[in-house]
């Protein structure tokens, strides 16, 4: 990051700076130049950063199959009507089962699997959610704590069937997951079983398999994610100790949990709702925990086969509210005009795209960025990513009602062909997925932005931070030297120490506030999320007051002589924010990007409000107003409310606290690094900016 910035600075000097004066050391001089003009540069860089973010949909490249071995669509589909009738029969049988019997659809599915020649087993699991434990935050996926007192009252049962590759060596496997609610499964859900059983019936008799195929029907009564995670835990890190769960229920699950080697890739198939379009719609979900993405080639293969072979309408998630926003439309039109102009100047410059495409692209990009930043997987495929398995969720919406028999045949045929092609491609792979990108943002199913491009926006955004920090530090030092005449206090190099103490104290506070929810959860008794958030809020603010009381230098309300110089404080704050953002960009880039969008202007604009009010000059008043507005937006709860409003759900009043608590709870339950970022980088920096705002200078 730093070297890149330096490069940029160097470039800067070559074009702009070239004074004929004698330059003893160009780099030092450049540094001095940048620091001296830091306000201008910070505005330029920040604006460029935002512009670079807006320009990203223009820079998106078309996806391409990078790994030649995949060869999607080059083999003719071997799916026959017999396979499809197998699938239809299963769906019919399940429907009849609902009419006649109660429960135990698992057995029916298991019987179908074993009739096709698969090895079948049932796995029982506990639906208990992930418990937050501060020490287990970043530990591996095998840290699910086993409850000691197991109750047979609620447990889920997964059904899995394995087809062994006839001549394969059993070292690798491909997993197909279909979530199904065994108690009140819907008609659409049954269709996903139909597609997979159609495919399974084919795979059981083909000779080209080199990897074993596992079909996992998960018990989606307990959510989509948890059953898959439970199965994966059992697959990768089983406990050999005795489990009470085995004794529960009538299903004979004493049979062994079977495995089939390293999982090479996984596909989750869901059939959901009716398509609003004329074609059947296929939605691809790829984001796993902490913004991790599967290899782009997997998405490419599915997209290629779905669009060019099976005629699905493929889409990825987008922020719908952005599609109708007028300001984005205007920007899109401007870019379109600029693109047209550039094209007339030089026919090689064809970066312009129509405004509608831009709108679509930025809505998708925003959604991609948001889901990555949130750090919560967008589907059951997220569980696989924890084990370094590339996985995506395919959600198919048929264009017909679920009870239409005639359409069903065609639907099964096409769905199964899509999966067959994908599995065949993955089956061809002799190596792991490695050829294509792992770090990318999608702007449409067939367009992506690679890490090299989207990093620029972030680099530009954070570039002014060290510059401003340095300039403020110099400024602050000068002010301090002026104010204190005592030469002993004039140890120049230690001026930042007071400020650093304050920054450190507030970061420590942020750390404690981050851990507080765990202890609040331990408080006995049932509490609503609202009450819990109130508890959290009061504890945090009292802790803040205590901090201010104990450390005299910290408080914005302390007398002037004890307080540190605000410029030095701001300089250290900005440095801390810079370090925090850079660290976060390594862990989860999208979080850092959105965080930088919020934090960088807030930090840069923060200045004491008192002198501005005293001076009564328009410019300083405007600055104070801006910093106040930015600080208000920058408060996590406030930002949460605003973003909720953007997504079309307005939340007001005290219920906001409850919502916010639930949101944060979900963040830590999913072990999202965003939670840590909010608590340990954003909140302290925000508090520090608040301190600067009310600084008694």
């Amino acid at each position: 990051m730093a070297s890149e910035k330096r490069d940029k600075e160097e470039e800067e000097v070559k074009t702009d700076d070239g004074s004929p004066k004698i330059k003893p050391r160009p780099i030092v001089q450049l540094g001095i130049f940048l620091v001296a003009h830091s306000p201008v540069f910070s505005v330029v860089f920040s604006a460029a950063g935002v512009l670079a973010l807006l320009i990203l949909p223009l820079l998106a490249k078309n996806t391409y199959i990078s790994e030649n071995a995949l060869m999607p669509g080059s083999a003719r589909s071997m799916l026959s009507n017999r396979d499809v009738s197998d699938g239809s029969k299963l769906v019919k049988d399940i429907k009849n089962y609902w009419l006649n019997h109660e429960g135990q659809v698992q057995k029916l599915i298991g019987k179908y699997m074993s009739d096709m020649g698969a090895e079948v087993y049932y796995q029982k699991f506990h639906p208990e959610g992930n418990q937050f434990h501060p020490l287990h935050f970043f530990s591996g996926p095998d840290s699910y704590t086993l409850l000691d007192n197991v109750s047979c009252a609620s447990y889920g049962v997964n059904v899995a069937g394995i087809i062994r590759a006839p001549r394969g060596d059993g070292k690798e496997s491909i997993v197909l997951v279909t979530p199904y609610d065994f108690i009140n499964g819907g008609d659409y859900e049954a269709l996903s079983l139909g597609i997979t059983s159609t495919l399974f019936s084919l795979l059981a008799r083909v000779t080209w398999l080199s990897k074993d195929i596992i079909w996992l029907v998960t018990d989606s009564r307990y959510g989509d994610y948890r059953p898959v995670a439970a199965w994966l835990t059992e697959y990768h890190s089983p406990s050999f100790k005795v489990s009470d769960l085995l004794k529960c229920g009538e299903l004979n699950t004493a049979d062994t949990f079977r495995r089939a080697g390293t999982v090479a890739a996984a596909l989750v198939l869901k059939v959901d709702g009716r398509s609003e379009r004329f074609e059947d719609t296929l939605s691809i979900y790829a984001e796993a925990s902490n913004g991790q993405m599967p290899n782009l080639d997997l998405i490419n293969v599915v997209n290629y086969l779905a669009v060019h072979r099976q005629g699905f309408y493929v889409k990825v998630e987008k922020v719908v509210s952005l599609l109708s926003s007028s300001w984005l439309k205007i920007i899109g039109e401007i870019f379109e005009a600029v693109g047209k102009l550039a094209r007339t100047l030089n026919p090689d410059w064809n970066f312009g795209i129509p405004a509608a495409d831009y709108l679509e692209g930025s809505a998708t990009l925003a959604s991609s960025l948001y889901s990555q930043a949130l750090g919560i997987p967008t589907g059951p495929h997220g569980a696989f990513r924890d084990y370094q398995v590339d996985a995506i969720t395919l959600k198919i919406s048929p264009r017909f009602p679920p009870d239409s028999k005639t359409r069903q045949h065609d639907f099964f045929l096409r769905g199964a062909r899509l999966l067959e092609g994908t599995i065949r491609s993955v089956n061809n792979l002799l190596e792991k997925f490695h050829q294509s990108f792992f770090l990318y943002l999608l702007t449409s199913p067939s367009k992506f932005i690679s890490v090299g491009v989207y990093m620029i926006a972030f680099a530009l955004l954070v570039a002014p931070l060290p510059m401003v920090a340095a300039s403020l530090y110099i400024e602050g030092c000068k002010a301090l030297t002026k104010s204190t005449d005592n030469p002993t206090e004039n140890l120049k190099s230690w001026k930042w120490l007071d400020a650093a103490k304050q920054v450190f104290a507030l970061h420590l506070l942020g750390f404690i506030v981050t851990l507080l929810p765990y202890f609040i959860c331990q408080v006995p008794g049932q509490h609503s999320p609202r009450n819990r958030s109130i508890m959290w809020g009061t504890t945090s603010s009292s802790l803040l007051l205590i901090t201010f009381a104990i450390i005299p230098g910290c408080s914005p309300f302390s007398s002037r002589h004890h307080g540190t110089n605000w410029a030095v404080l701001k300089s250290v704050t900005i440095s801390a924010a810079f370090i925090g953002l850079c660290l976060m960009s390594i862990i989860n880039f999208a979080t850092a990007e959105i965080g930088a969008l919020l934090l960088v202007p807030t930090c840069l604009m923060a200045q004491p409000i008192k002198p501005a009010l005293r001076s009564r000059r328009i410019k300083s008043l405007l600055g104070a107003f801006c910093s106040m507005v930015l600080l208000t937006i920058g408060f996590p709860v406030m930002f949460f409310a605003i973003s909720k409003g953007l997504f079309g759900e307005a939340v007001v009043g005290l219920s906001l606290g409850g919502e916010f608590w639930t949101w944060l709870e979900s963040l830590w339950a999913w072990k999202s690094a965003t939670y840590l970022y909010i608590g340990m980088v954003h909140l302290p920096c925000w508090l520090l900016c608040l301190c600067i705002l009310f600084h008694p200078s």
Partner: protein
Amino acid sequence: MASLIRSWIPLLILQSFLVAIAFGSKEAEEFSEALLLKPLPDRKVLAHFHFENRAPPSNSHGRHHHLFPKAISQLVQKFRVKEMELSFTQGRWNHEHWGGFDPLSSMNAKPVGVELWAVFDVPQSQVDTSWKNLTHALSGLFCASINFLESSTSYAAPTWGFGTNSDKLRYGSLPREAVCTENLTPWLKLLPCRDKDGISALMNRPSVYRGFYHSQRLHLSTVESGQEGLGSGIVLEQTLTVVLQPETTSVETNMQPSWSLSSLFGRKVVGSCVLAKSSNVYLQLEGRLGHESKNVDTEIEAHKLWKNADFDLSLKPDRVLRESSSLLFIFDIDKSSDSEPFDLGLTWKLPSKWSCQQAPLQATRFLMGSGNERGAIAILLKATESQEKLPGRVVTDGRCTIKANIFQIFPWYVKVYYHTLQIFVDQQQKTDCEVLKKINVSPSTDKVSSGMLEMMLELPCEVKSAAISIEYDKGFLHIDEYPPDANQGFDIPSALISFPSHHASLDFQEELSKSPLLSSFKEKSLVRSYTEVLLVPLTTPDFSMPYNVITITCTIFALYFGSLLNVLRRRIGEEERFLKSQGKKTFGLKQLLSRLTAKIRGRPIEPPSSDSPAAQSSFLSSKLIFKIILVAGAAAAWQYFSTDN
């Protein structure tokens, strides 16, 4: 006439002398061929080709053989191989459905890829050298990369865990070796009739390799004559085991498919190999038939055996043998000819179901953990249904126990922590001394030797499941040890689970039969099963890193030397003067314009660029910048309107 006779006599004497030399010993070289067919419970058919070639111990042969392949005898003589087994396998043996407690499976269920073990008859110090030479020789002989076993990191010297107790035993396996027809052809070349005649003519490559399991094995052992001055004899046993899926048209899923030799292999047997002493085809039917009437003396009863309500054989068997749970039909193929080829067929009339006898414990092995750092290898032993019925329980101190040997090689990049060995019996953790009877560990040395673990477990007879887990760290390979292309991971060879107190044998109680196949079945063989091959994904370094490093260092060098030269070359006072004089000059507007338009149009600049310091100095003056912007704007506008027209 007399002279003629006289001249013949020496010739006759010479001839008789030669004959005496050739057939001087009591036994001659013998070759026999056999094919065993066996329907399997999961609607597949197992075909087991068995060829045996015996060279009796003799001195007189010298280096000459009639039937025995010369290549093998040279191999034995040169490397002084006492016993050796080489197997090429594709696919996995399904212990659940294809059996695990009969001689066929315990001898022919082999791990995926190539497995080689050999016992040498050389002094201890020369064993490794002999092994290395042997791997190279076999590599050339069988067109396979067996020579990779030469490296000391890929083989081990098991002491007792392998089943053969010898300190001159070496064992190695290559799980990644792809097995195909280029390995079969040299193997067939060792047969006297190759695949031109006899049973081996059935080996149609497409049908053999279409199967679900394919294992070609070569086992040779030397037989000591015991007499002074007489060399040792060699017994070469070549087997090919394939599991095929007969093509069926019937939709009914519980009906066993009917098949014939021609439908399985696409060929028929048109006669035996003339050099073979015996050539038979066996058909073994397992399970459900054992309980039928014991006396097969009458013709009708015998007829009932092969043509009954359940199934129908297309040919009349020459003999029928029975064992406790299976029937064996023997066919002699000598009678077949071109006009009347031998095409045995089996037609099922009723759905039938049976199960194969399984080994006392069924073993699976898998990797635990995720990520690139640590993991664990777990071996799960699960009691099979037939466990209670099996003989071979050992009662010690009033406790009934099952013994199980585990033999496992760890490549050095899997750094096993032997102290983390955990044993769970019936989901209860046991201390080592409770169940572990014997253990032998030889830790691996980085890049020098592989690790080896031999364990003897003594489990209670009523055990339902046992689990063994051992943790490991993943090592770092040297850059040239990685495969040239991106890889899926590295293999841990199969572990071997054997049950020293269980022996499988099939005794058909046929004194008359001298068939090598049946006698090999009669011998008690150790029950053993191989586990799956495991795939360990190792951390793959960023191979583009050297390139990046080169780029960065080159940049740094360029910057360093550039600035150094700059400092050395420059005369600052002189330069300043030059700059001042340059600054006075008006900048060529035309030149600038042409450069700008050229830049916009994406073409190379036509005139050579002027001195950069001059350009830079002129760039800075604000007037000029304004001028440039003005001109650029004008040029852009002009361009825009001119192209529109």
